[in-house]
């Protein structure tokens, strides 16, 4: 029964894909999440499903990580789908959109449940690639963003695939549980780093993120920033077990990259003018922190286990909050500064920064406890992240109050879905931590309030100061380069017309094109080469 439920979690969205072509199935994606949610809530930890005949042998497992992530992920997918289902203007009325929405959903569940590399990769690829059509929207800018996303995703998936082959060659097994025993070659590690680094938007690999978050439909961003992005972290946890040999020296590398991401995200986020963009850079900052913490775990394998556990909780919290935030932005875009929308977003911002009595405070506390040992640097990073996030959220809220949006909608049904998601996100992972009112927890709250006040003051003092902030960073430049390159790249016009001059008749050709020298020489070379190759050994 449990096994069936786990299978159903992945199979239901897949099998309901053909149904999208029948009209009036807007609730289909929401319903398809139910088995996953049930599996996450009802199935006990440790259940394994073996399908040795499938592909290279597929194994699913609800382990300690999945038991936390699956319900949260399913929950988010359910409410995002429900939120969009009743909204006329959103794209769930497009069968193709629903199709890829379901594919991405199924892939996401598979990533969480996979116990072997190939299954994980399948889920990862399905999720990543299905998101591409979900990002598409009318308009040049949206097309460009989607294409950049696709390019990064393809590179990432390829790197992951190559890394996987390397791991397989080293360990001889596809199961994650067998990976700890063998040393991982450096090149493989680098490939995995790139593969997952793109998903978690490490600095340098992050270009796709602000673009995509800026232009995509809000439901896509909600699932992309929440559950799908966490697959990167999950990948690291699965593929690079901290106890494996040869990973220790990579710890500092990851820490450094993570710290850079944190700084970059905060820095660039603060100068954005669009609420979505602020959230996008906040994601980069948060994933930077996660990366740094994971690097710390790799560096000291002995204390890795509690860090990893705390990271998973952290990820679970972040995926709930980020999705809810983006849905809230969607409400805000449609309704303007309605009082209840602003209140809800404010609550989410509070839990994001880890204000006391929120789920955010809980996970931060958990992280703080886990790295209490000799992770001096990490503690500093954690504090830095707290301050940075607080500032970003202040910027976010401030932008929301400043920007004028003309309300276009008055219906309330989709809002209900958001309002259900909201408290769950606010209270976070519901772990049996004791909610304590710590003085340290007050720090980000103070920064948040101070930031809001400071921004208002600065704006009053120098009007227009914040208007100079840019949207996006290196991407604008990249875009220019790409546009330029597109114009400059010639389409190769190598024609083999002359070969028929010799072979058929010159008259049948429309016009002389090129010469035969190329193909003729190639043919000759091929001929001589084959001959030489046959001669060589004798």
């Amino acid at each position, binding site marked *: 029964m449990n096994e069936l439920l786990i299978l159903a979690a992945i199979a239901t969205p897949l099998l309901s894909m053909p149904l999208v072509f029948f009209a009036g199935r807007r609730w289909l994606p929401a319903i398809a999440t139910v088995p996953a949610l049930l599996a996450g809530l009802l199935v006990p930890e440790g259940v394994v499903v073996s399908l040795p005949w499938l592909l290279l042998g597929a194994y699913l497992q609800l382990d300690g990580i999945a038991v936390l992530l699956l319900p949260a992920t399913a929950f988010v997918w359910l409410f995002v789908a429900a939120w969009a289902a009743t909204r006329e203007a959103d794209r769930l009325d497009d069968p193709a959109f629903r199709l890829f929405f379901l594919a991405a959903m199924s892939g996401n569940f598979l990533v969480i449940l996979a116990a072997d590399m190939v299954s994980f990769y399948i889920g990862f690829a399905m999720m990543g690639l299905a998101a591409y059509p979900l990002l598409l929207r009318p308009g040049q800018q949206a097309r460009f963003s989607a294409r950049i996303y696709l390019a990064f995703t393809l590179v990432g998936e390829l790197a992951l695939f190559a890394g996987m082959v390397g791991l397989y060659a080293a360990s001889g097994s596809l199961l994650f549980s067998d990976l700890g025993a063998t040393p991982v070659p450096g090149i493989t590690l680098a490939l995995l780093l790139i593969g997952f680094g793109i998903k978690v938007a490490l600095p340098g690999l992050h270009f796709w993120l602000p673009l995509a978050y800026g232009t995509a439909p809000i439901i896509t961003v909600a699932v992309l920033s929440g559950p799908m992005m966490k697959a990167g972290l999950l990948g690291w946890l699965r593929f690079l077990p901290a106890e494996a040999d040869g990973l220790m020296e990579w710890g500092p590398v990851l820490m450094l990259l993570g710290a850079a991401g944190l700084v970059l995200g905060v820095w660039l986020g603060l100068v954005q003018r669009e609420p979505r963009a602020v959230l996008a850079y906040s994601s980069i900052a948060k994933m930077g922190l996660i990366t740094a913490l994971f690097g710390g775990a790799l560096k000291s394998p002995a204390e890795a286990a509690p860090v990893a556990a705390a990271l998973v909780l952290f990820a679970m919290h972040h995926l709930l909050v980020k999705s809810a935030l983006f849905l809230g932005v969607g409400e805000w875009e449609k309704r303007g500064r309605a009082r209840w929308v602003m209140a809800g977003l404010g609550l989410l911002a509070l839990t994001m920064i880890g204000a006391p009595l929120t789920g955010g405070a809980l996970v931060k506390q958990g992280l703080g406890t886990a790295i209490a040992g000799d992770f001096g640097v990490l503690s500093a990073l954690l504090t830095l992240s707290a301050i940075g996030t607080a500032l970003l959220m202040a910027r976010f809220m401030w932008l929301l109050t400043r920007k004028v949006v003309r309300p276009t909608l008055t219906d309330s049904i989709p809002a209900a879905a958001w309002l259900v998601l909201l408290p769950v996100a606010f209270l976070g992972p519901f772990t049996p931590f004791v909610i304590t009112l710590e003085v340290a927890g007050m720090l980000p709250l103070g920064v948040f309030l101070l930031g809001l006040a400071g921004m208002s003051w600065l704006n009053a003092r120098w009007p227009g100061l914040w208007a100079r902030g840019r949207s996006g960073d290196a991407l604008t430049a990249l875009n220019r380069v790409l546009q330029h390159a597109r114009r400059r790249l010639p389409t190769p016009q190598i024609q083999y017309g*002359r070969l028929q001059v010799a072979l058929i008749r010159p008259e049948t050709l429309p016009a002389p094109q090129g*010469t*035969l020298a190329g193909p*003729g020489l190639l043919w000759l070379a091929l*001929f001589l080469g084959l001959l030489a190759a046959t001669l060589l050994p004798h």
Partner: protein
Amino acid sequence: MSELLWVLFDLVLAGLTVGLAWVAVATRELRRGVLLFVGLGLLLAVIWARLRAPDLALAEAAIGAGIAGALLIAALRDEIGVSAEPEDGYTASRRLVDLGAIGLLLALSWGLLDAFLLSDGVRLAEGVAERLGESGVINPVTAVLLNFRAYDTLLELAVVFAAVLGVLSVGPARPALEAGSLVLTGLVRWLVPILVVVAGYLLWVGAHAPGGAFQAGAMLAAVAVLLRLGGVAHAGLPGTAATRWLLVLGIGVFVIVGLSVMFADRAFLQYPGDIAGVLILVIEIAATLSIATALALAYLGGRPVGWEADCDSPQHRVNRGAADRGGDA
């Protein structure tokens, strides 16, 4: 002495063949090339005769030089405004192709030389001679073509069939020539019966002497070519329905004979020894008719008038004009 003379003759023959082939390819005027090609076919027929392969000599003369030449000349007639002027870069590319050809030739010679050094001389021929008695015919070539390796021949008939299907699908037939002069029509009237008789003779004699379906078919096709030149538009072909039947007759009879022996618990095409000769003759007659029809249609250069009148349901008839001009979906 006479041995030496023959060697000399062979050398001259070989040199002439290579030279003629070279010139035929190298000439820049297509008409010249075609005429030289016909000459080359005749030369090849002589070579086959010298190699004591009269069957091949006959086939080469009839098909390689005769029908193929007629086809090429007919194709040439359709090409209006063919430019014979060499284009820039043509020489360079030609030289490269020449080089490639020479390279291939050298490699081939090397391989063949080594093959002859290696070979112990045991070939298919010994096996054929041994089992000839069981084949139902006396001519070893016919035995190989219609019995030992009959399957190859079946597929070769299919190749001819494919070629004619291709011809039929590309476009309508060339317009017929106007009626020829008195001398020409007189000659045609005089030659046609003789050629038909010769074709029948070649077919019949195939069982024990050089000859057979391909040669006879080519001879019948020559009748069609002559008729067409003499101004007979349908070139002696019957109505379209009958022509369709004639086209498929060869392969059809072949396959049906091959399959019907399987009811007697034999392999495909395993003729019972006592009636093998009769079966082979039946197949050869059918094949001759099909080959002749196919070659005649190829000479017409496309679909004869009214070919597709019975293809479609009435509502599509209107489109046929467009389809005949080669346009379709």
